[in-house]
């Protein structure tokens, strides 16, 4: 079985400060890991992914995430937050064996990020 936990429902940061949105996962094998953002009245928008290779992954809009296998974490980070980063963020995992769980991703419950001016 695969699962994802986003321990924080809400993250509040001031504009210009660094932000972190936490994600931990569980899979039986090796993971593919994803971060998505959802703005109001829109569908999920892909930010970045970890498949293999460098543990630090850089994505869209200045976001990055670090894969930590020992801690089974994939936290999303940005060095300097913008008010426009305020949105709902979802972490997702799928087992690298495509046939496991029919190749479907499991999503976390989401974290609402609010960046205040």
């Amino acid at each position, binding site marked *: 079985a695969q699962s994802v936990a986003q321990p924080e429902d809400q993250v509040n940061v001031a504009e210009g400060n660094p932000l972190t949105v936490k994600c931990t996962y569980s899979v039986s094998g090796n993971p*593919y890991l*994803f971060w*998505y953002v*959802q703005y109001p*009245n*829109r*569908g*999920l*928008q*892909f930010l970045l*992914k970890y*498949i293999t290779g460098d543990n630090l992954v850089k994505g869209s809009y200045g976001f990055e995430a670090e894969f930590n296998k020992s801690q089974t974490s994939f936290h999303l980070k940005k060095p300097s937050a913008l008010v426009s980063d305020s949105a*709902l963020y979802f972490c997702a995992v*799928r087992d*690298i064996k*495509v046939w496991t769980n*029919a*190749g*479907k*991703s499991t*999503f976390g*419950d*989401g974290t609402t990020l609010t960046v205040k001016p």
Partner: protein
Amino acid sequence: EADIYQTPRYLVIGTGKKITLECSQTMGHDKMYWYQQDPGMELHLIHYSYGVNSTEKGDLSSESTVSRIRTEHFPLTLESARPSHTSQYLCASSSGGSELRQYFGPGTRLTVT
């Protein structure tokens, strides 16, 4: 558990055929979405709908079209299938408001030969 259904689950079809992928939900959700996903890869939004008679194109350009005549039904149509359309198509819905979680259907794996 969410009640969102997709048919067919698997489809192999020849180039040039017209196909419709069905998606239905029984939760009364206003918002529905179609995503395209290649194996091991991320989801890409191709269409979404806020409610009946409301449809919008998503982030990934797609030759497909959608309709939303009833709240519970959000079919996706390809007028002329091509091998480049081979992918997995996931339908999702959400209630909106304070509940932003999306519920996903089981997906349709489409192969165009």
